[in-house]
């Protein structure tokens, strides 16, 4: 997919959406594969670290895709995405801080740090939909 050519904002959005779908499909496949290998083959050392990091590669692709999209988006698309991302960051920071205190001081069960990624994505998606609804 050639992203060096200037796309109009609608095309840029379609391309970004397609890249995210492909990247997240690869992410799920890599995650399942890595979990399977780690649980059944019990690798150690650098191989284990590499397998643990492998699923993050498609996420880097998504971040690059978002950057490309934001450079080609129009002013309203950019406003909605940046506003929803700010809200998602704020809500996620508050939730992780609150749960961190509950873990440390009230003995709540430990939640892995990768849940931050899930929470920020969910809040980002929800706020983005809400903001777009406002402009419809």
């Amino acid at each position, binding site marked *: 997919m050639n992203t060096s050519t200037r796309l*109009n*904002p*609608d095309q840029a*959005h379609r391309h970004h959406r397609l890249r995210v779908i492909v990247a997240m499909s690869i992410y799920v496949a890599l995650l399942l594969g890595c979990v399977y290998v780690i649980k059944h083959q019990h690798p150690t050392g650098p191989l284990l670290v590499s397998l643990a990091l492998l699923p993050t590669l498609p996420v880097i692709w998504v971040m690059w895709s978002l950057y490309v999209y934001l450079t080609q*988006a*129009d*002013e*309203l*698309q950019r406003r909605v995405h940046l506003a929803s991302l700010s809200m998602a960051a704020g809500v996620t920071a508050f939730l992780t801080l609150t749960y961190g205190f509950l873990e440390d001081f009230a003995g709540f069960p430990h939640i892995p740090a990768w849940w931050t990624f899930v929470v920020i994505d969910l809040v980002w998606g929800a706020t983005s939909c809400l903001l*777009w609804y*406002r*402009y*419809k």
Partner: protein
Amino acid sequence: MKNRIHVLRAERRWTQAELAERLNVSRQTVNALETEKYDPSLQLAFSISRLFDTPLHEIFLFEAAPPPADR
């Protein structure tokens, strides 16, 4: 802010998608402009003015808040 984008577009028989392409914005943004839910930046407002060959003040109608009532 009120605007006449919808009227100017209809006069030229353009679809929202055509106007979006001419302004290099998304169709959603054209819709948000026409329904007056989004006020464009100065740069986009001037682009709209140039595209329709119509002065800004004939496209966008600024309504200032009413002055406070005399007591």
